[in-house]
């Protein structure tokens, strides 16, 4: 008892300031995580009490073709969208880093899509642009190419979402620009004296020195892309269609949990997502030893 009171005396100020966060940590993170782990082993529809089903939810997932498909869709989105987005971000950052005037204005212009990108308004706009009567087809028509309804074709719908994510390359671009400014100018000068071409400079100086930033962007964008929801929901009208071709993992989880009220199954899906993201992030971290260059 005495130990407790002296512990309290020494630490109360810290815990006073930390109190909101700790309450949130326990009430909104720890307890819900435990609950969702428990629910993932049950059948639960919110109206009757949960019934224990063991690993059924997890094994059922692998027989659920819609679930398998949602993984395929999400993987396509992440592993096509993120690298292309970063490639764009890096290319534009390199262009803007050439010491030209007005960099701040250009940076702002290129950042605008990132600012708006996650909004419902942009998803709506995308639905129009790639629709049968949309802007893309009008432009194609101008060049004599006949378009199609990109949104309602199961072969192309996912690519309109990939384009949407590439379009939002502004945030990683800003990070690349900040990183490129850190590369010491002396390195370029001395290599120029040695007669290195600018392409050689890029591969032997710039690229190695910004690998930590590429790595950072890669991890952040992968984690973010796995959780994308709004564009798929809006473009498909909440269905993930056509033919489940835009059924993102998170969208399927939403449908299972909050439209079908299969909350046990949805919880299992959430835990699978957590493990999946952790696994892929771990792979990226492991691979970092091979390609990320840290200056000492």
């Amino acid at each position: 008892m005495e130990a407790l009171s002296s512990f309290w005396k020494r630490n109360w100020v810290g815990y006073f300031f930390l109190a909101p966060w700790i309450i949130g940590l326990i009430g909104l993170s720890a307890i819900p995580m435990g609950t969702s782990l428990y629910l993932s082993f049950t059948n639960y529809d919110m109206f009757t009490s949960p019934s224990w089903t063991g690993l059924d939810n997890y094994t059922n997932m692998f027989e659920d073709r819609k679930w398998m498909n949602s993984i395929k869709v999400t993987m396509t989105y992440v592993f096509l969208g993120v690298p292309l987005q970063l490639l764009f971000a890096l290319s534009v950052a390199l262009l803007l880093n050439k010491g030209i005037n007005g960099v701040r204005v250009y940076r702002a212009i290129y950042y605008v899509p990132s600012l708006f990108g996650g909004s419902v308004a942009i998803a709506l706009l995308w639905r129009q642009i790639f629709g049968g009567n949309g802007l893309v087809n009008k432009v194609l028509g101008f060049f004599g190419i006949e378009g199609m309804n990109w949104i309602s074709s199961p072969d192309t719908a996912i690519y309109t979402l990939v384009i949407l994510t590439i379009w939002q390359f502004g945030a990683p671009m800003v990070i690349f620009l900040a990183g490129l400014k850190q590369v010491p100018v002396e390195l370029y000068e001395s290599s120029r004296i040695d007669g290195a071409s600018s392409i050689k400079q890029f591969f032997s100086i710039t690229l190695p020195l910004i690998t930590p930033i590429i790595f950072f962007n890669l991890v952040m964008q992968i984690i973010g892309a796995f959780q994308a929801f709004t564009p798929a929901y809006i473009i498909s009208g909440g269905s993930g269609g056509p033919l489940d071709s835009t059924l993102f993992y998170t969208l399927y989880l939403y449908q299972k949990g909050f439209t079908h009220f299969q909350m046990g199954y949805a919880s299992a899906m959430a835990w699978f997502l957590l493990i999946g993201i952790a696994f892929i992030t771990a792979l990226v971290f492991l691979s970092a030893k091979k390609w990320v260059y840290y200056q000492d």
Partner: protein
Amino acid sequence: METSKATKSISNVRVVSNNSYRTIKNLKGILLHIFIISVGIIMLYPLLWMVSSSFKIETEIFRNISFFPTEITFDSYIQGWVGLSGVSFATFFRNTIFLVTMCIIGNVLACSMAAYAFARLEFAFRKVLFAIMLVTMMLPFHVTVIPQYIIFNKLEWINTYWPLILPKFLAVEGFFIFLMVQFIRSIPRELDEAAKIDGCGPIKMYWFLILPLALPALITTMIFTFIWTWNDFFGQLLYISDINLYTVALGLRMFMDAMGQSSWGALFAMSTLSLIPLFAVFIFFQKYLIEGITTGGLKG
């Protein structure tokens, strides 16, 4: 005589070559600018086209891919603002502004308190708790959303803003704590010592010294909270189904469902309006936004 002529002509040659080198460099610079601007225009064209379409006559939107309307009309705005089922966009905007304001207050207050504790105070398990905070930053919210929904449902908070606001007052967004910890650590400790000598306790120190000095980090937090809440859709979709409580995002979604393909003009007009506050914040606080992206890797 001869030699001086020769040196003169040599230096002339040098001047000429120097000049042409400069012209080539200038030309390259101009081409680079043209290239960057062109790519920028192509990128922003959908947005620009949406804005201009919102001023076009409905039938012209699909016929005219040009940026310039043949005739400027505000019909789409008037038609769109009316909203649906007797609830206008004025309500949606008012609701969103209320929600955003509450979220900003919550985040700034709760995250700065936690950040102050982590950055300046000594207490048991500080390092462990900080590590836990960093881990929670990376967790996909899906592992907590279902139980949270069940809890909020039990509390009968569905169709209120509590499920969206309360988490902010409990500092759930670790990014901001991290951002502020970084910032507070950069404030010289001597200031704390001086304040302590003047009889400042930890609570006064937080309120009168750290908070004012950490203002840039607080502004960055405000801006990102604004953008994220304004753009949020998942949380609002989950908890709000009463049309009188709809936010702009939900209003737009419903508008699309109700109008279908028939009324793109009004949809574009309201979409444009919904982006203006974001754009304004971006224009006025760009510095803080860039700061947040580069130090915390925050996404706009």
